Every structure is written in structure tokens, then in C-alpha cells.
């Protein structure tokens, strides 16, 4: 496997609450090739979200090494262009309309231009929200909001998308539609996808399927 998008080795994460130590991750190794789609399953509390946060550079491991495209820098500046994240809850900014929420990802890199606006509008069209661009998040349904979050994650043409149970708050049908959309867009744009999910059906749609158990990949 040459030039991995992401490589992690020996990731260890332990939480301390009072005098109890919770060893969540006990040495996770992961190498992701460009364009791959990977699903991660595991029972509740097995450390899937924790792992995703480490991979996203949002949290630091107690031990182990992480590199994006061979570079160990996982700081905020690099993250904005390299990574798109979709969460279980949609976390849109309530004061901004749908278009501006998508553009927010671009704004953090620098002031958006006309081309960026067009791209945001195009992405919204592709997630089926062309008519709702001027609506506020509060005026959308849960599935629609998650589609906005998907568009936002894709806005900066990231190399990698990390999705943490993106269907967790959606009904079965809507959830399936969002997963189809996410997988379709990633395949189309050649974006690498890591999908954390409880749903075996959704996981099965990914090319590589991993199971987190006892702090390691089984």
C-alpha cells in the first residue's frame, strides 16, 4: 500500500475518571489507501468515536503515531482542507442559512469567492436541497439537516471524510438515503471515507469492514 491517505500505528487512549482508568484504545493500527471506503463497527462504548476523534486530530493519543498523507501535522490549519467530518448530531449553525452553513467550511480557509458559492450551491443541489438554500436549519427536517452536514463536509474537496454514526438520529429510510448519498458522492469525487456505524447493512456497503473490540481491531 503506497502513499496512504492516513496511517495510524499503536494508538492508545486511556480515560481517567477519579481513580478509575478506562483503557478505551489499546493499540490501534490503521492504514487507509486513497479512495477506499471503510466501515468501523463495534458495540456501544467500544471507542469508535474516540478513535475517530484521534484520527481527525481533535484529540491526542496517549501513545502511537498518526500521519495524514505521510505528514504528522494534524493541526487545525491542515484539517480544514484535508478533512471533512459528519457527526451523529448535525451541529449546523442556527443563525446561518443552509448555503452559508455549507460555505462556513470554506470561510475558515479564507474568504469565499463566487466559485465557492457556486460549488456550495451545486453540492446542495446534489444532496437534493437546491430549493432550501435560504432556509435556516430550524426549518429543515433531521434528514435534510444531515444532508446539509454532508454537503458541508464535502465543501473543501477534502481527501478524507470521517463520519460518526451519521444516521444515528434518522429513521431507517432516511438513514439509508443519507448513506447512499455519502457513498455515492465519495465514489464520484474519489474521496476516501471512514464510516462509523451500528448498522450492519450500511457497513456492508463499504469496501473494507472493520470491527473494534477490546480496544483493537478484531
Amino acid at each position, binding site marked *: 500500500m503506497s502513499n496512504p491517505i492516513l496511517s495510524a500505528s499503536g494508538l492508545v487512549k486511556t480515560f481517567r475518571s477519579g481513580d478509575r482508568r478506562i483503557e478505551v484504545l489499546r493499540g490501534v493500527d490503521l492504514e487507509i489507501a486513497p479512495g477506499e471506503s471503510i466501515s468501523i463497527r463495534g458495540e456501544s462504548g467500544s471507542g469508535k468515536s474516540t478513535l475517530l*476523534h484521534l484520527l*481527525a486530530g*481533535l*484529540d491526542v493519543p496517549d501513545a502511537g503515531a498518526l500521519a495524514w498523507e505521510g505528514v504528522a501535522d494534524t493541526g*487545525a*490549519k*491542515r*484539517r*480544514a*482542507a484535508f*478533512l471533512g*467530518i459528519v*457527526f451523529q*448530531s448535525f*451541529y449546523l*449553525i*442556527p*443563525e*446561518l*442559512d443552509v448555503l*452559508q452553513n455549507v460555505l*462556513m*467550511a470554506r*470561510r*475558515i*480557509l479564507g*474568504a469565499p469567492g463566487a466559485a465557492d458559492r457556486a460549488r456550495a450551491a451545486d453540492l446542495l443541489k446534489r444532496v437534493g436541497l437546491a430549493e432550501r438554500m435560504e432556509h*435556516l436549519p430550524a426549518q429543515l427536517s433531521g434528514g435534510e439537516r444531515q444532508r446539509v452536514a454532508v454537503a*458541508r463536509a464535502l465543501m473543501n474537496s477534502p481527501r478524507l471524510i470521517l463520519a460518526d454514526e451519521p444516521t444515528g438520529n434518522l429513521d431507517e429510510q432516511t438513514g439509508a438515503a443519507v448513506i447512499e448519498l455519502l457513498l455515492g458522492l465519495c465514489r464520484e469525487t474519489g474521496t476516501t471515507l471512514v464510516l462509523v456505524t451500528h448498522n450492519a447493512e450500511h457497513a456492508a456497503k463499504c469496501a473494507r469492514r472493520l470491527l473494534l473490540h477490546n480496544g483493537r481491531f478484531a
Partner: protein
Amino acid sequence: MPWYLYLAFKQLFPTGRRFPFFTVISAVSVALGVALLIVVLGVMGGFGYQIREMITDTEGEIQIKAQGSISHYREAVKKIETVPGVAGATPYAAGVLMVQYQNKPAFPQMRGLDLGSINRVVSLDRFVRLGSLDALDDDSVILSGGLADALGVRLGAVVDIYTPLMLSRKDSEVILPRTAKVVGILEIGHQQLDSSTLYCTLRMAQDLYGLNEDVHGINVRVKPGEKEDAVVSRINEILPAEVRAFSWRDSFADFLWVLQLEKNMMMFVLLFVVLVAAFLTMSLLLVLVLKKTREIGVLGALGASRRQIALCFCLQGVGVGVVGTGAGLALGFTVLHFRNDLVRAITHVTGGQELLARFYQFSELPEHLENRDLALIVVAALVLSTLAGIIPAILASRLKPVEALRSE
């Protein structure tokens, strides 16, 4: 526009919401504090300003006095008028008299005016309510409005004037009262001056006080733009040691000092109002930060730096400060503009318009806001609001994205 500025603006003024709760409440509280400061300091500054106006309108900016009386005043006036910065000088005589009209006595302050030079120093004409200053001669007087009312004198009446010299004469010679025709009624707008003053020619005043060719003092008008204190010291250089010049500021130093002290105290106390407003802004911003914890996490996940997140919230404090100060300035100046209507409305309900005038010496509420005070108010409001934004901003930037995302 950097994203944090954009988002700060959008959070203060969200699209499609006419009443952004946080912005309105906190901006209103800042605005009330600013308006209060402007109104109170404006009116208090007005008292000082009004007193200055009153003194300089009636006596010029500089008064020259001696231990007793000033002799050879004509040369003195001529010499003073050659001093650079002096626009004009006029001698005067002053003292207490007794005036009687139809058996009603009064004891006014007398001011003897040199008609030849008075106009170079003060334009009394504009205060003449009835009659005219031109009609004044050595056998006539002008009375202040309050004195005329007290005596029941109308224009053209003849009053008897008794000089204090009557008391000092030890021999048996009786000095008869002098009769004078009232040719004018004068009102300056200051309670104390208007209540009991009699204006006459310098000649008459000199006769009444037995001054012969002496005067009690000289009033000096300073050219516009000249520094009063500089002119005072220049005049003192050419005057003999027993005759001294004082600026109006020196003459009323105690009063002005008390006024300044009161103003500073008021400013100090009222700044707490703005401080409380800043605390309100801060607590509302803190609530906002807590409410937005997960969005802050998302911003972090999207690649926002801590510094930028801090700026985003700090700018909201600044925004509240700017909007609140702007509204406060508008409100404050509006109230100042309509202050007399407000006072009239209040005294109409509670009574006591007369009392107010007597107590404060002015018939109208004055107003004068110094630029220094205005700048201080604006800067204080902006600085406090910015500080109010800093603590929530630090709290927001301290949130680790993971913890922010985990919070429920």
C-alpha cells in the same frame, strides 16, 4: 471578511430574526448607561458653562480690583487696552444702595456703568427687556426684572435712591435722597443677578459712593481665542502692585472646584451603571457560549483555531458595545435636547418650577457636554463591553473540540 467577524455579526444579527434577544437586551443596557452618563454630565457641565457665560456676559473674562478703589482709572483703562489679547476694558463702581418707591424699600446691588466703553466689554443691550440702554443718563436708572417686580415699578416711574454715605456722615447735615427715572428693565437669566440689581451711569455711582474720580474696578474682555490666564499675567505686569487682575476662573475658583468635584463623583458613580451593563453582556455571552458549546466544537472540527474562536465571541462583546454606545449617544442627546420640556413636564406633575429656578439660579436647565467627557464616556463603554466579551471568549477557546462535541 474573516469567518469569525462574519459569524460574530451573524450571531448578533441573525438573518430573518427581527428581535435578536441577546443583542437587544445587552445593547439596551449599555445604551441606558451611556445615555444616563451623557444626560447627567451634560447638565452638570451646563451649570459650569452657564456660570461662565453669565460672568463673562456681565463682567468680561477678567476683573481688575484693588485693595480700595482705583484712581486714575482712565490711564489704567488705556494702558490695559494696549495689552495684546485685550479686546476692551470698562471701569465700574459697585455697592449696595437703598431704593424706595411709594414707601416700599429695597436694597439692591448697584452697578455703575461707563457708557462710553461698556459696549467694548459686555453687550448689556441684549438683556434689556423693556426700555433701552441708550436712554440711561445721570438722572436715570435701569432695574433688574426681579427688583422692578418687588418694587412694583413700571417704565417711566421715578424712584428715590439713598446712598450709604448718609450713614457715615457724622455731622448734622442731611443728605437728601436722589431721584431717578426708571428707563429700562433688564433680565440676564440668572436668578441672583436678576433678583436685585440697579444699573446706573458710572458718574451717578461715583457720586452715590463719594468716589470722586475713582472706580471700584475694571472689567476686561479678552479677544476670542486668547488664553485668559496669559492675558491676566500680561495685564498684571503693567499694573501697579496694589491693583491686580483676576480671571473669572480665579474669582469663582471655589465654586468651580465644587462643581468639578460633583461632576467627577457623578461620573464615577454612573460608570458603575455601564459596568453593570457590561456584566449583563458578559453573562448573556457566557450563556451563549454554553448554549453553543457543540457548535464551537464543530468549528474546531472544521479547522478553526482557538484564537479565531475567541475572537468570534470577543467581537460580539465589541459589537454590543458599538451598537449600545451608538444608541446611548442618540438617546442621551435626544433627552438633552428636550431636557427643558421634560423638566417642565415633571414639575407640572410634581409642582415646584419656581423652587427649581431659585435653587439652581437658572430659569432654564443648561447643557454643555465637554468633548473630553464625551470621549471618556464612549471609550469607557467600548472598553467595558470589550472586556465583557473577553471572559466568555477565553471560555469558548478553552473548550476542547472533543469535549465540546461530547457535551449534551
